[in-house]
Structures are given as structure tokens and as C-alpha cells.
């Protein structure tokens, strides 16, 4: 196989294959929602225990690279919370998270979220120190400065942390939980954070956690459409496309490990010189 084909042809073939699978949309009997339904059940239990019209603080700090993995689940969770009459306060501690939060709040406004149900607390600077000040506001300490709404966090019933960036569920557990007694924290994170956040679920420091597309899909399947079906995003990434991509990656990796394979030359370009 020529070097040009190995370098350009294979990526083109992979993109073409994925585009074909996405366009044709074959299910192939694959269903990612069934892989691990228990975490979705735990999250639904936490949501069911909330009081009527709960006050929910949404720590929105995903990153652009992994947000597509979370987006359908996050949107469905937000729609479900609004259906339960929740007041949502969005806050971000990272600039990237703030950009995505602004986009999501604009979408909520555009698609008809109830007026007054979404509060924008904006971007709070200071990383861990910001979380400490946020914990103080939740505990009833009046903040000295900051955006309007920050002094109304006393009595927050639930914190939903959308992770992916530096200040994710781990930072919330370390900085907010010890200072805001009784606050329940649930999280939605990308798969890549699974090893970091799973111990917090196991120890109960996170009341619930969705951390893979399968767990997210299980939550979406078990969550009723409610009053705001347009706000939820039911369809996740195509299971067939994921399976096809993983198969290609496995073959690619295997060929990279075998001498003379085209992927080996692609992955080790200096070896050609």
C-alpha cells in the first residue's frame, strides 16, 4: 500500500464509512442504553426525592472536545428538571464552560423554557477559590460582590455538575461539599473522567453520576418527554457508527503493532526517514 494511500486514503475511508453509517442510520440491533442502567436509576431516584419546585444550581464546565458526548443527556436532564418545576441557576468557573453555558441558555430561551426558570450567574473567577465562595453563598453567607442571583443560592436543593474541564465533580466534592452541608451533588461527565469520578460515586460523595454514553442513553430512555419535549435531545451518537469507529480503531491499532502495517508507518512517521 502506498504511503499516500496510508496517510490520506485511510482517514478518508474512515470518515466516509462513518458518514455512510450516520446517513443511512442502520441500527444493526445495537443499543447502548442497556449496558449499565443502574446509574440512571440512581439519578432518577435523587430527582424524585427533590421537593416541589426545587432550586437547582448547575455547575456548567464541560469542554468543547467531550461535550458532544454529554449534550443529549444534559439537555434531557435540564428539560426534566424544568418539567419538575425547578429553578435553574447556571454558573461556570472556566471560560470554555461559560461559552457552552451561554449557548445552552440561549437555546433554552429560544425553544421556550419558562420565563424566570433559568438564572445566569455567569462566570466566577478564581478556580477553587470561586467554588469556596459559591459554597459560602449556598450556606447563606452573603457574597461581597458578583452577579445578581449569587446571594439567592441559600436553600439550593441540588447541585448538578456538568464536567469535562478542570473544575469538575472532583473539585465540587473537595471544595463545595465540605462547606455546604446537606447539599446533594450529582454529575454528568464524559467517559474519559470515569476513573477520576467513579470513586466519589462509590463512596456516596456524589449522589448520582452519569459518565458514559450508555448511562446517558439509559437515563434518556427512562425519562418521560414531559412538558418540554423540544428542550430534550433524545438521540445520542449512533451506536452503529460508534461500533464501526471502534472496529476501525482496533484494526488500525493491531496493524500498527504488526511490522509493515500501513498504520505503523502512519503512527511512526519518523521511522520512514
Amino acid at each position: 500500500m502506498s504511503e499516500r494511500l496510508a496517510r490520506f486514503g485511510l482517514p478518508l475511508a474512515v470518515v466516509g464509512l462513518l458518514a455512510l453509517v450516520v446517513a443511512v442510520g442502520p441500527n444493526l440491533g445495537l443499543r447502548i442504553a442497556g449496558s449499565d442502567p443502574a446509574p440512571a436509576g440512581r439519578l432518577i431516584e435523587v430527582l424524585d426525592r427533590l421537593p416541589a419546585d426545587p432550586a437547582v444550581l448547575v455547575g456548567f464546565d464541560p469542554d468543547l472536545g467531550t461535550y458532544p458526548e454529554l449534550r443529549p443527556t444534559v439537555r434531557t436532564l435540564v428539560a426534566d428538571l424544568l418539567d419538575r418545576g425547578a429553578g435553574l441557576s447556571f454558573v461556570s468557573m472556566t471560560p470554555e464552560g461559560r461559552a457552552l453555558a451561554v449557548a445552552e441558555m440561549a437555546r433554552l430561551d429560544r425553544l421556550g423554557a419558562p420565563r424566570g426558570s433559568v438564572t445566569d450567574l455567569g462566570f466566577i473567577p478564581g478556580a477553587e477559590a470561586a467554588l469556596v465562595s459559591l459554597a459560602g453563598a449556598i450556606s447563606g453567607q452573603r457574597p461581597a460582590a458578583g452577579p445578581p442571583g449569587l446571594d439567592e443560592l441559600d436553600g439550593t436543593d441540588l447541585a448538578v455538575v456538568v464536567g469535562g474541564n478542570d473544575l469538575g465533580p472532583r473539585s465540587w466534592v473537595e471544595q463545595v461539599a465540605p462547606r455546604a452541608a446537606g447539599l446533594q451533588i450529582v454529575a454528568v461527565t464524559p467517559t474519559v473522567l470515569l476513573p477520576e469520578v467513579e470513586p466519589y460515586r462509590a463512596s456516596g460523595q456524589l449522589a448520582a453520576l452519569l459518565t458514559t454514553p450508555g448511562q446517558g442513553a439509559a437515563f434518556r430512555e427512562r425519562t418521560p418527554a414531559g412538558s418540554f419535549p423540544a428542550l430534550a435531545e433524545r438521540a445520542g451518537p449512533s451506536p452503529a457508527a460508534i461500533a464501526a469507529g471502534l472496529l476501525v480503531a482496533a484494526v488500525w491499532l493491531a496493524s500498527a503493532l504488526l511490522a509493515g502495517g500501513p498504520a505503523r508507518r502512519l503512527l511512526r512517521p519518523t521511522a520512514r526517514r
Partner: protein
Amino acid sequence: MNGLATDASATAIAALATVAVLGGLLGERRVFGWTQHLFAGLLTGYLVLIAVREVVVPWLVTPLIADPAGRPELWIGLAMVAITALSPWLPRALAAVPVSIMVGSLAAFGLGGALVGTLLPQAAATVVAGGEPFGVTLAAVVSAAITVLVLVGFLHGVPRGRASLVATSAGRWLMVAGIGGWLGYLLYARLVLLIDRIAFLVGDVAGIGR
């Protein structure tokens, strides 16, 4: 411009940028390079906007204007902002003050939180106090063994003796397996991102399958 036109133009720009980035995957370098410069410029502008609109004005300027005499700590903060902005022209010892305070406070909060929020609760959650099912005890023993082996593999530069060599080697393989698992998760996340972008082009832009 109405909302619909704004949406359409945003979709068109997003589609063009996506095609340019995917072009980089397929070997196209010039447009891909322009796209990177565009993203870097947008990011810089965005960060300046965030710093001014969401940090300096609401947290510093507005409270100072409202109560200039009652908030002395904000004057110190304003001085730190000025020192940071002028740091290339100031003595190194002076320019280091705001950065030192920032790093010190982050380390203090980080270490304190790691101790109170992670180390102690996680240690308490994993301690085997007796009376647990056999599987729990076995899992704890295996976890402890893996932790010890990885630490030995990580810290033992030059193993001496056969037992030390075997432990170090096993620890390093376990560490590589862990890194491999993490890379697998990363691959999965990037694959979902790629599929999401392709689905955007195929479904939202081209309208196929919708």
C-alpha cells in the same frame, strides 16, 4: 439580522470550520492552518471579553464605584491587576507578587480540599473494618496490592534482586495498562466527537437522514 438568518449563517460558518478541520485529518494543511489561527484569535478575544465583562467590571470596578472607601481590599486587587498588566516593565520581585498570591491560594485551596474532600473520605470508604462479604475484602486486598506494585514500579529506578525486579516490572505493566485504559476512554470520547461532527454535516447541513 433576524434570528433565523443568524442561525443559518452560524450553521454555515460552523459547517465550513468543521470541513476545514476534517480536511486537516485528511491531509489538507493550509486551510486547516487558517482555521487554527481563526480559533486562536477568537479564543484570545473571547478571554479578554470574559476578563473585562465578567470579572473586572462586576467583581472589581462596580463595587469600587459603589463604595470606594468601604472596600480597601478591592483597591489592593486593582493594584494587583495593574502590576500584572505592567509586569514586563516592572522589577521581577514586584511582578511576582500577584502570581505568587494566585499560585499560593490555589495550592492552599487545592491541597486542603484534596485532604478533606478526597483523601480522608476515600480512605474511610475503602477501609475494610471486618464483617464485609468476602468479595469486598478480596477487592480491597487486590486494590492494595496493585497500589503497592504501581508505587514500587514508579519509584524503583534500579531494582536489585529477583523479587524487586519482578515487583517493579509488574508495577510498570500495571501502570501501562492503566494508561492504556485511559487512552481507550480518550479514543472513545474523540470518536464520539468525530461522529457528532459528521452527523452535523450529514444531518443538519446536508439534510440527509432527517
